[in-house]
């Protein structure tokens, strides 16, 4: 049941571009499926905890980047959005790192 209004939604993309985008979406979807299988497969390898964490994080980061760049269109987004997200990423890293470093810092503490 298609609506009978006049023109297609006017944005910066045109119909042909959308077709190209859809091809990308499907490619990304397949990649995500493969990487999901990989994530689970790697967990059966019985790696040491540091190795397991590293590999899992790398795979998750790749998957997450695909979702962000292509499904969320970040790769073609405006600089302002990128700037906000980079700022957020810096504070995110600070939030993850500084507490654990502080709690485990033993320099200058005896015993």
């Amino acid at each position: 049941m298609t609506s009978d209004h006049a023109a297609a939604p006017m944005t910066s993309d045109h119909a042909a571009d959308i077709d190209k985008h859809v091809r990308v979406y499907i490619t990304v979807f397949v990649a995500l499926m493969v990487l999901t299988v990989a994530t689970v497969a790697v967990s059966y390898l019985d790696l040491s905890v540091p190795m397991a964490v590293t590999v899992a994080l790398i795979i998750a980061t790749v998957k997450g980047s695909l979702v962000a760049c292509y499904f969320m269109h970040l790769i073609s987004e405006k600089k302002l959005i990128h700037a906000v997200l980079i700022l957020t990423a810096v504070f995110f890293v600070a939030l993850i790192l500084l507490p654990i470093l502080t709690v485990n810092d033993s320099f200058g503490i005896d015993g």
Partner: protein
Amino acid sequence: MDIPYAEEVRPDTGLTNGKIAIWLFLASEVMLFGALFASYILIRTGAESWPRGDTLLDVPLATFNTIVLITSSITMVMAWASLMRNRFGTYRIYMGATILLGFVFLTVKYFEYSHHLSLGEFPSTNNFLAVYYTMTGLHMLHVLGGMVVNAYFWGPGATLWKTNPVWFTNRVEHSGLFWHFVDLVWIFLFPTLYLL
């Protein structure tokens, strides 16, 4: 009174108000979940012992759920792409699929939680479970919230397509951004809790 740049982009920024707003909101959500990940790291590294995720949790079920959520992400972006291609009917199908897949995700989680609770595995039992319930619980609330918004755009909100297709498409895109973010969090949450 009309607020400018709700539908059309502002020339010098190239953005609509809604696009900026949703990304700002997602930035705050990154910090929200970031705090939970930071907490997990602190508690786990300070613990005498910590069970491997797959010893306590159902990995095949969660893998299925991961596939469900990723699939819902592509149906979500296809819903938006359908609107861009002026195919409202196809939009309805993809958006409906997204909502349905979200419902499947929640159902699976319901069974997971019930199973754990029936075994006496409560949040208070140990910190692994406390972290598990809290992180997946908050994530679930976000899935539910996304579904409610999507349901609105599938149902009563869809009348906006007739009067203002551009604005409607933008709003669906913004809802999609939230939905993809929820998927993104799960992409990190799944290996962290279930596999490590």
